[in-house]
Structure formats: C-alpha cells, structure tokens
C-alpha cells in the first residue's frame, strides 16, 4: 500500500552513483541489444532500399537496371513544367485527405476509446464478455471488415440505409460511398468502429494500473466524477493515452486497406498510402513510389514529434 501512495508523488531528482550507474548502463545496453539487432536485421534492408530507390528511376519489372536521378522523383523542373511527387495535384489531394482522415478518426477513436475504457473499468456486470465483445471489431481481418461495411453501406441493399429509412430518418437511400462529399466520412466512421478497441484496451490497461486511492479520496470528498476524470484520472493516464494516440496516428496516416476496398482509387478518398501503392505496384514505378513512401514517412515522423511535444511526453529525461 505504501508503495502506491508514494508512487503518485513525483520522485525527487537523484544524483547517479557513478560505478553503479555504469554497471546499470552496461546492463541496459545488454538488454537492448537483441531487440536492436532484430530490428536492424529485419527493417534495415527494406527501409534503406526504399530510401535508395526513391533516388532512382527503377521500375518493378527491371529492378536491376536503374539510373540514379537524384531528387527528380520528388521535384523536377523540365521544359517549364514541374514534375515529381511534390508537383502532383493528386499527391496533395492525398495529403489533404490523409490528414483529414487521420485527424478526425484518431480524435473520435481516442474519445470513444477512453469512454469505453472507463465503462469497462467501472466494473459492469458481465465485464468479461464485454471486454471480449469490444475487441471483436479489431479482431475481424481488415480485408473482411472493409468489404462487410461496403455491403452494409450499399445504397440499395445495405442495412444502414434500410434502418434509416425504417426509422424515418432519411427520405431516400444515401449513397454513402459513391457521394464524393460523404465517402471520406463513411470510411472514417468504419475506421473508428474498427480501431476504437485498440485505444480502449490500452487505456484500460493504464486505468487498471492506477493507484485507486486518489479516486477514493476524491469520491469521499464528493467531487463530481467528470471533474475527477479531468483532474485526477486524465493526467495519470496521459502517457498511455499519448502512446495510444501516436500508434493510432501512425496507422491512420498510412491507411490503405480500408480505403482501397471500400471506395477503390477515387480522388474523393485517395490517401498517401493508396497513392504510393498505385505508383509502386499498379504502375510499377518503384523510384517514384518510393519517393512518395519516403515523403509519407517524413510526414508521419513530423506529426509524431508534434504529438510528443504536445503531450509533453518526456522520452529522454527522468521519470515523471
């Protein structure tokens, strides 16, 4: 009990004892080594290769016969015209769509995920089944759930329209996925459905590891539960929440399957990953597609750093 009480208090800065500290650092690197070696082995080559090919004109069918073209895949001015990924209107459309998609879906998922985690944490009856049920959307393979939703959202024989018509909420069936103004939002709704469980489960773990006493104290003091949440709970789960948001953002920025299965390659929903995939695979332009992939990764990196700063998640320093 004492351990948990003191745990909530920020620890005082401790000066390292040098010999012990060195030993600990050595142990730390020993612990890190297997993970780092695995990552270098598995990710090193594919990533270096992508970065390299983005500077060449390699095609998928003749990967050997490439020429070094510098930054031409990114931007090139020739005969008074701009070429390259950065000069392509469709790319910028994809950037806009992706940012909109990622921003809205991650926001909704976070809010909903926290709500669900709180409900589960509060100890509802049949909690076990609830927890299993919450995971179901996340557990259905994306290729299947995307197709399933495109049928549910079908304008003629889809259940969603049927339900809305029966309830009298709409006068005529809505073309959820064909209407350029609605398509992106429909995909967002499906993504929220699919990945909210991810946030919920991570936040639930954070809630479960919280010291209960703070709540008890607040409850005894008669503080409104909403205030307890914002003033006690939220600050305590902030690191876990930040990580959930970062990984959701990472995935949402790279969204592919969902969009591709539900709406094909239409401009209304094209995302950066769909764009990169078209160039890399469908058009077999490995050089150009790799450039798009590198730009996407750079964008994700930038966003991650912004989120880390906004969440004041301290990576390097001491513990909170």
């Amino acid at each position, binding site marked *: 009990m004492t351990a948990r009480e003191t745990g909530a208090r920020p620890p005082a800065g401790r000066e390292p004892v040098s010999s012990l500290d060195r030993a600990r650092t050595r142990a730390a690197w020993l612990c890190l080594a297997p993970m780092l070696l695995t990552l270098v082995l598995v990710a090193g080559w594919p990533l270096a290769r992508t970065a390299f090919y983005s500077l060449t004109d390699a*095609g*998928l*069918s*003749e*990967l050997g016969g490439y020429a070094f073209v510098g930054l031409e895949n990114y931007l090139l001015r020739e005969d008074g015209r701009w070429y390259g990924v950065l000069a392509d209107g*469709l790319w910028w459309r994809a950037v806009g769509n992706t940012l909109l998609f990622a921003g809205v879906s991650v926001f909704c998922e976070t809010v909903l995920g926290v709500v669900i985690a709180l409900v589960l944490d509060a100890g509802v009856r049949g909690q076990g089944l609830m927890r299993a049920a919450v995971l179901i959307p996340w557990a259905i393979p994306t290729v299947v759930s995307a197709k399933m939703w*495109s049928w549910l959202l*079908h*304008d*003629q*024989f889809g259940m969603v329209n049927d339900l809305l018509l029966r309830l009298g909420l709409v006068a005529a*069936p809505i*073309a959820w*996925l*064909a*209407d*350029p103004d609605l*398509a992106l939002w429909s995909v967002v709704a499906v993504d929220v459905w699919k990945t909210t469980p991810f946030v919920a489960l991570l936040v639930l773990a954070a809630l479960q590891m919280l010291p209960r006493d703070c709540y008890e104290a607040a409850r005894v003091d008669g503080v409104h539960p909403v205030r307890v949440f914002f003033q006690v709970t939220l600050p305590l789960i902030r690191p876990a929440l930040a990580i959930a948001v970062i990984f959701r953002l990472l995935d949402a920025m790279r969204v592919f399957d969902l969009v591709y299965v539900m*709406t*094909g*390659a*239409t*401009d209304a929903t094209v995302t950066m990953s769909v764009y990169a995939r*078209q160039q890399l*695979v*469908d*058009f*077999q332009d490995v050089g150009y597609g790799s450039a798009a992939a590198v730009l996407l990764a750079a964008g994700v990196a930038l966003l991650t750093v912004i989120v880390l700063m906004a969440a004041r998640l301290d990576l390097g320093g001491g513990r909170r």
Partner: protein
Amino acid sequence: MAALALLAAAGPARAEVRLAISCGALGIELSLCTEGVARWERATGNRVTIISTPNSSTERLALYHQLLSAGADDVDVLQIDVVWPGILARHLVDLAPHVDDAPARHFPAVVAANTVGGRLLAMPWWTDAGLLYYRADLLEKYGRPPPERWSELAETARIVQAGERAAGNPRMWGYVWQGRAYEGLFCNVLEWLAGYGGGTFVDEAGQVTIANARAAEAFRTARGWIGTISPQGVLNYDEEAARGVFQAGNAVFMRNWPYAWALAQGEGSPVRGRVGVMALPVGTDDGRHAGALGGWNLAVSRYSRHPAEAADLVRHLTGADEQKRRAIQASYNPTIPALYDDPEVLAANPFYGRLRPIFEDAVARPSQVAGRRYSRLSSLVWRATHDIVSRGVPAAPRLERLSAEIARLARRGGWGTEP
C-alpha cells in the same frame, strides 16, 4: 511428406519435371484446374503443384509482380488477365514456337490481345465480354422491345422505373453498371465509346484519340443516367454490387459479365426465368454493339527452369478437349469458336448461341499499345470519368485534358512495349 517419400522412392533415375501453376484458389475453379492438370501429369509423367492466388485480380497482379521482378522460379505457368500480357511482357516466354497452329483455332481478337510486339505471350483459356441483362417480364409488361440504342434504353428504363415505383416498389431503378474507380469502369467506358464510335482512347499506332465529339457525347449520355435511371451509388459499384441490385429484382437493366447469367437464373433467385441477355446498345447508327473483352489466359514465366514442359502444359490446358470439359462442367466460356457449335456444350449452355457473336465482336482494351503504362492509362480514365459523370465537369474540355495527360504518359518513356 508424402511427396518427399515418393520422390525418394523414385530416385534420381527418373527425370520427371516438377512444375508449378497458378490457377484459381479454391472451389470449382481450383477443381477444374486440378483435373486438367492431372490428365497432363498422367500423360507425361511430370508433376505439377498448384499455387493459390487471390480472387481479386489486383492482388493477383501485385503478387505476380513481386515474384517475377525477383526472378523467382516458384511459378512456371501463370494464369493472367487479358490485359496483362503488355504489362508483364518482359517476364513471359514467347509461346509461338511451342503451340504449332493452335492459335488459329481461337477467337482472333483474344489471340491478338495476347500478342505483344509479335510475341505470343499467352494462350487463351476462357473468354468474357460485357453484356446487357434485362428483365424480360418487365419489358413485356410495359410493351417495350429490348433496346438497341442507349437512348431507347434510357427511355424504357425511365418508363418501367416510374411504373414499378408507382406500383409499389420504391427501390426500382432503371440501369445498374460498374462505376467504381477500378478496372471495371474502364470496361464500361470503353463500351460506351464503341457504341458511339468514339474510339478506344489510343489507336493501334499509339496516337491518343480520346478528344473527339462522339466520345464527349458518350460521356454526356452516361452523366444523364446518374440520379435519373441509375442510382448515385452506381459510382461505387463493382460487378457484385450491381448484381445484388439486379438479382434482388430492383433494376430493369444491368451491364455485367456472363457469370451473372447462371446466378440470376439459379435456384432461389427472385428474377429466375425473367432475365434476358443481349449485346450492349449503340449510341449512333455506325456505333458498334460491343462488350469489353475480358477473360483469362495461360502464360509461361521466363524464369521457369522447364519452359518447354510448361508450354506443353499450357497447350494441353488451353486445348479444345479441356475447354469443352470446362464449358460443360462450369460454363467457362471457350475461346475456340468451334465449341459454340458443339452439341454437348450447347446442351449444357443453351444461351451460348447468343453469346458467340458478342464474344467475336468484343472490343479489346488498348493494353498492348500502352504496355507497361496500361494501368496508368486506365487510372487516368477512371479519374476523368468520375470528374465528368460524378462531379459534373464539362465533358469536352475534360477529355481534352485527359488526352493531354495520356499523351504525356506516352512521351515520358514511350508506351513501354519495348521488350
């Protein structure tokens, strides 16, 4: 394990060849292939393993790209779409020396589609073409003939749709087709253009031909359907989404491939016995009643260690005996015209009589000319079509722009047919 044991027992003395073929993944497609392959194994003493590939042709092509660009010898014989020979040209073996005069027995258009730069890259296995399905019962009820022209189709669709809606089916629509941004839309557009004499985007010499008044007229016609006889949702329909509406009895006309026939007429189908099928309409007098050419073919990978044996397997599988068996057992449309007169084939598929001229006249996508750039060309066309049909961008100027985009594609590295 069993295969290993067998191999060990046979010993190195027997020089049997082991091949791998990709042909369908599961179900009837797989069992047809397995049987055909087994016959060849018995006849030649060689062994063949079957590699399963995904049902979606996009996924399948991506997998082939991955294997072939690595020069992998994991697959010897590939089942490829009729528009892929140009895309995969440099990875495929010229089959001409291996198949004698066999190509002469197949539909010339299909053989032509499989010939790139004078090399026969694949042998036709089964064919497909876009068709117009109609509700024979409804046309009779409203006294309308099956439409020969797009304008007739639109008028009939409007009349029947209004009548049926008034009679208590608010979900009735006139015409469903494939408007999603994918290869199926390209096929639909190509058919409109053929009906208006608007060309095929790019002619055989590689010249871009899309910026013409007839093509613009075809696009304007299609735009007129949205919201009047076709639901807006059609702009995200693929084959199954369209079939779902038609087969539930909620559409008068449907554009689809021949596969929908057996299903619409199948047991339990609400429209069973009320469906007719015909060639797609034309837009002008000199237009062509053309369905887009589809279908699958067998090719041999350049990285195969046994190209001669692989070509022999292709020759066997695409031969008349195999095609006949496949047509009778599962209605895979033969690419050999003579089989459409075969009494056993006709007994199993009574509607084949009507299909033959449609297959013969099918219009091929410009995949040979565009070669490796075909996928880009196709995706430019989807975008332009969606702009015009869905967003209401004026047709003529948008087609001018499409023309410039396609021309730029051709210039930036040629049409890509070089070996």
